[in-house]
């Protein structure tokens, strides 16, 4: 990705800044380039300012996490890992990390599988309740998870699932499903139907044809949808707060909130906890970053 961009830049960017003033005047072609692209400073100055706004908070957290307690230095030196040790064992972030990972991976798998089945039906069949179902999917986007806490709590209490990670996994999955299904059915529509038909002609069943033809082509889309689901469940706070009261069942966001609500906040431990919370999503994000833009521009969002 980076090398490709750098190549593109090579061919277009240099003329504007590199044109030496001593030259008798830029060639007409160059003048056209300078006209249709804004001057470099109009890109770099606002971009630089925005990068500062984005990155300083991250730096700030890292700084608090690795400098010794009581230090006010703005440079992270000397480096210490005492905050990490403390938060991982004393504040049981080690346990929270496992729980969050379990919730994230389980709801990612459930969301992807269920949405794949539903998305295939929506993309490839015409059936009586299809329009109504699509409408329900869209409408569900307006239903606030936060306002459903009370009835969901009662449901899970009746199912005797309060204080089990299962309740959180189900709740996360359900609220991921509509958008994931809409996205996946968009991706499936982009796979030509004739390819599947060709597989049937060759004697494949519908299921085998799907596995052999459609599934490999869906890989980028499934990676994007699965990663959304993982990041979302990893980050989500309210369901875990409401449904899990045992400390050894809690997830990282709840652990962070507990650290923040203490009477005197241990800033070093809080920052270290924040870094622990950030690492998995940053890795996933770096992994899917380039799919984000292309995935959305595939027209999936517009339906």
């Amino acid at each position, binding site marked *: 990705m980076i090398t490709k961009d750098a190549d593109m830049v090579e061919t277009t960017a240099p003329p504007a800044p590199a044109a030496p003033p001593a030259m008798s005047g830029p060639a007409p072609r160059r003048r056209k380039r300078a006209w*249709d692209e804004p001057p470099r400073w109009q890109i770099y100055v606002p971009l630089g300012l925005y990068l500062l706004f984005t990155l300083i908070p991250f730096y700030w957290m890292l700084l608090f996490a690795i400098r010794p307690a009581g230090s006010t230095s703005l440079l992270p030196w000397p480096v210490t890992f005492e905050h990490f040790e403390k938060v991982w064992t004393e504040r049981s972030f080690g346990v929270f990390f496992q729980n969050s990972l379990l919730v994230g991976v389980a709801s990612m798998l459930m969301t992807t599988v269920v949405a794949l089945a539903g998305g295939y039906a929506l993309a490839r069949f015409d059936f009586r309740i299809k329009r109504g179902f699509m409408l329900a999917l869209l409408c569900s986007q307006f239903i606030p998870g936060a306002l459903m806490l009370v009835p969901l709590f009662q449901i899970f209490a009746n199912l005797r699932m309060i204080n089990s990670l299962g309740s959180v996994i189900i709740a996360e999955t*359900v609220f991921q499903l509509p958008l994931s299904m809409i996205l996946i059915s968009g991706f499936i529509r982009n796979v030509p139907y004739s390819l599947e038909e060709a597989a049937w002609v060759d004697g494949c069943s519908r299921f085998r044809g799907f596995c052999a033809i459609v599934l490999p082509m869906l890989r980028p889309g499934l990676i994007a949808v699965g990663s959304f689901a993982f990041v979302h469940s990893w980050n989500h706070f309210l369901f875990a707060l409401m449904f899990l009261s045992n400390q050894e069942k809690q997830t990282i966001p709840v652990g962070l909130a507990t650290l923040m609500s203490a009477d005197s906040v241990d800033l070093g431990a809080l920052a270290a906890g924040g870094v622990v919370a950030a690492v998995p999503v940053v890795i996933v994000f770096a992994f899917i970053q380039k799919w984000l833009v292309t995935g959305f521009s595939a027209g999936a969002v517009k339906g």
Partner: protein
Amino acid sequence: MAQAAAVAKRPPGVPGPSRVPRRRRTGATPRRLPYLLIAPAALLMLGFIAYPVLSVFYYSLQHYNPTKPWRNGFAGFENFVKAFTEDPQFWSTLGFSLQWVAVEVTLQLLLGLGLALIVNQTFVGRALSRAMVFSPWAVSGVLTSTIWLLIYNSQTGITRYLADVGIGSYGTSWLSDTSTVFPAVVTAELWRGVPFFAILILADLQSVSKDLYEAAEVDGASRIRQFFHITLPHLKDAIILSTLLRAVWEFNNVDLLYTLTGGGPAGETTTLPLRIASIAVDSHDFGYASALTSIAFVILLFCSMVYLRLSKFGGDDK
């Protein structure tokens, strides 16, 4: 039915594969198949979305409080009357919710649009800049609170370093002062929210036809005119959809405010959903919380309809 869809999708004039396998397939894929495929999703959504929504409406008409079971029973519209007439906090939290949504969505849209236009240009280091400016998108509301609490804390936060160079005084916290708390939480949420708009708008920008710009340039249109006459109309639907989704999400945003300010100081930053959550958690008055939830539903639905109607969403191509 499946067969009908298959036939419809084939371009006219192209002979289909021989009829035999197709007929066999229709036999092998009964009309029940699509229903079987959507069944898991439909059941989950019925059980954990539709049923809770209905039960919210049901409980809004009940006195229901597990800690005061002797009062439980049919309430009629008493919960709603209480909200509109007896509960001063209802109106103040509703007002703050609207202020919060309006300010957040407007600023996020403007900054996100600007950011998308910048990273859509060709320049050295574009891929890396994109990855970095988009990265807060992946961060949770609670983690955002964590980071900004570290920045705003009164001892070692930003105010300390500002005081070092003579701005403000030591020991101040922007989060506990009623005059600074709003800009402080707005900034924190902007940090996380702008990348959402930037990503969606950037995705849509990539589908603008280059020919349009070239034609406009031949006609001598300036870049500003090109923006208003080509780019902005093209982005219209994406902007409408993303502002609407974002407005709903910001209205329902509880994570950040709950952990960063807890609704304080002095209830200054309590939104309606935050108040509902605290009623449900602290006083267990589920009946009243359900009534407030129903009101929030109706407000969201009504505003969404009006917004889609006024903005003539998708009106150009239908």
